[in-house]
């Protein structure tokens, strides 16, 4: 094997430019595979975590037929939470919180904008909706108090700074028009594109006065594990009855994840095309090598090299290109994925002019690094390279030595 390896290596170096070109395609294919997979998996994580951390937790109870999908957050149908239900929630969830979603008009002088209001419980909200990536310019609102947090999008549209006052206007639980002067305690960047565009956070005590009801519109739960929803959902539904509906991180993300599935298939197609090009390149390279080295092959056969070792020699050449190219591809693809799994890519610049309120999605994308993907890609690249070498290696091994030794 040492002899075959030495011959293969030196022959590859002999045609360094051709070897390099062929290997480059493998490097590109494997790099793109790992990078694409890491990015798509990272976006999937992002979608799921955004739903969990900023939208529905693991499970959310809300009034039946709630029209959030239409971008509406009505307060005419709210939830009653009985002491029994509270006790049940305390036992079932690792954390739970009540939220009141509302849709105020934020008025600053002559300007106004419609916001996506979230009334939160300062004591329990972070247990379900962790604020890992939040940064607040200013401070969190005092509760009780007439203070709110607004999104950078609202601050920008209304030219607001921390400490300024605005009027919140909306219809109460019973349909009357209500308005309240509130102070902007802080401008919060959550990295969630939707919330950073139109989000408004107010303590539920303040929201209760605005809508004239202390009842929440949503109850969100954090479970011991996200997949526990299958087990918990039927019990939760039984406790809250027919006039409510359940949404989970899974149902909330299903559509976006389906889109991701399409992207993944597109990536697979791209990688397939690149690998086909790489395989074609390897076949071509080894075939050219076989035809250029007819006399050399004949000489080796005359010296006693059996056909199967001639075959192995050319397979080793393909394998070296495959392994080397796959390792290099894994190094750059895996390196970038690994880097971006620790330091996220900031897509906020690309979302500023896009309506993102229909999506719960962080503008900071962490790629998803998995050794199994890297190792599988290396094995895949190497295997394809060896398979692509089989035909030209067979051509070389089937040469008739009597003719080959005297070839020009």
């Amino acid at each position: 094997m040492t002899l075959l390896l030495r011959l293969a290596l030196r022959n590859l170096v002999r045609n360094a430019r051709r070897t390099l070109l062929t290997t480059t395609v493998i490097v590109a294919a494997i790099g793109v595979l790992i990078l694409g997979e890491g990015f798509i998996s990272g976006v999937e994580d992002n979608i799921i975590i955004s739903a969990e951390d900023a939208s529905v937790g693991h499970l959310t109870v809300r009034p039946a037929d709630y029209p959030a999908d239409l971008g509406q957050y009505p307060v005419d149908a709210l939830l009653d939470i009985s002491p029994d239900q509270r006790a049940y929630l305390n036992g079932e969830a690792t954390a739970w919180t009540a939220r009141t979603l509302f849709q105020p008009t934020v008025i600053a002088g002559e300007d106004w904008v419609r916001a996506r209001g979230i009334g939160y419980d300062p004591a329990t909200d972070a247990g379900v909706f962790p604020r890992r990536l939040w940064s607040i310019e200013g401070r969190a609102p005092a509760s009780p108090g007439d203070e709110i947090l607004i999104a950078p999008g609202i601050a920008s549209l209304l030219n607001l700074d921390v400490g300024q006052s605005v009027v919140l206007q909306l219809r109460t639980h019973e349909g009357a028009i209500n308005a309240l002067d509130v102070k902007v305690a802080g401008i919060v960047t959550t990295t969630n594109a939707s919330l950073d565009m139109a989000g408004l956070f107010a303590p539920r005590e303040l929201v209760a006065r605005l809508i004239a009801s202390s009842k929440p519109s949503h109850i969100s739960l954090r479970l011991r594990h996200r997949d526990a929803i299958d087990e918990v959902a039927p019990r939760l539904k039984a406790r809250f009855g027919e006039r409510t509906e359940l949404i989970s991180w899974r149902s909330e993300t299903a559509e976006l994840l389906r889109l991701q599935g399409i992207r993944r298939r597109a990536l697979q197609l791209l990688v397939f095309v690149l690998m086909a090009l790489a395989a074609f390149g390897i076949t071509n390279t080894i075939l050219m090598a076989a035809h250029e080295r007819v006399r050399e092959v004949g000489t080796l056969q005359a010296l006693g090299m059996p056909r199967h070792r001639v075959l192995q020699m050319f397979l080793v050449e393909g394998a070296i290109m495959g392994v080397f190219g796959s390792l290099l591809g894994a190094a750059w693809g895996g390196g970038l994925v690994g880097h971006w799994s620790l330091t996220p890519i900031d897509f906020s610049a690309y979302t500023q002019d896009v309506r993102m309120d229909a999506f719960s999605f962080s503008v900071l994308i962490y790629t998803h690094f998995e050794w199994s993907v890297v190792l599988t890609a290396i094995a895949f690249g190497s295997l394809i390279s060896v398979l692509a070498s089989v035909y030209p290696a067979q051509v070389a091994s089937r040469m008739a030595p009597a003719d080959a030794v005297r070839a020009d």
Partner: protein
Amino acid sequence: MALCELEGITKTYGEGPTRVDALKDVDLRVEAGEFTVLSGPSGSGKTTLLNQIGCLDRPTSGTLRIDGVDTSQLGNLALSKLRADKIGFIFQSFNLVPVLTALENVELALQLAGQSAHIRERARAMFPQVGLEGLQARRPNQLSGGQQQRVAIARALVKEPAVVIADEPTANLDSENGEQILSLMQELNARLGTTFLISTHDPRVMAHARRRIEMEDGRIVKDTLSQSPAP
């Protein structure tokens, strides 16, 4: 027992109107230690005959025995093993492996023969014998034609084969180098007792041979022993 024994060897290429009978019912015995030259015009069958004896090709019919082994009974793998163990080759175009150094080219013959003991020392020891001391580390493209052919001779002889087959070994050399190569082969034949079977058009080569076999139209037409070959 003869070292190489051919009985009724024929070799036919093609069929019908394109059929060519390259060898026609050839009988030949080559004894151990002979220095034999095959001569004849182009197309007379010299190379085809060497291909048969070198087990690079199979006859259409007839029997070939090398060192007592009937080659018609052997598969490709066994033929490879027979070539590796018993047959050394010297080619007109030298046929060194270009990516290996001169020393590695000589080692190659031992490696392919499955030998593993003292390969480097044995290969290195061949270089003074062929007059190439100090050139072991050179690649073939750094050697002259004469030097390359000496490396090829070293490669053929290092495994101590039963027979060395040389196909036009001086054809690509100038007269001085050709003469030196011939003298070297003759000296090694005398000193080591290695059997040489050489095809050639070169009258100088024929002059060096003790036994001369002339071929024409695929047949041996003359087989003569000389008592006093050129020194």
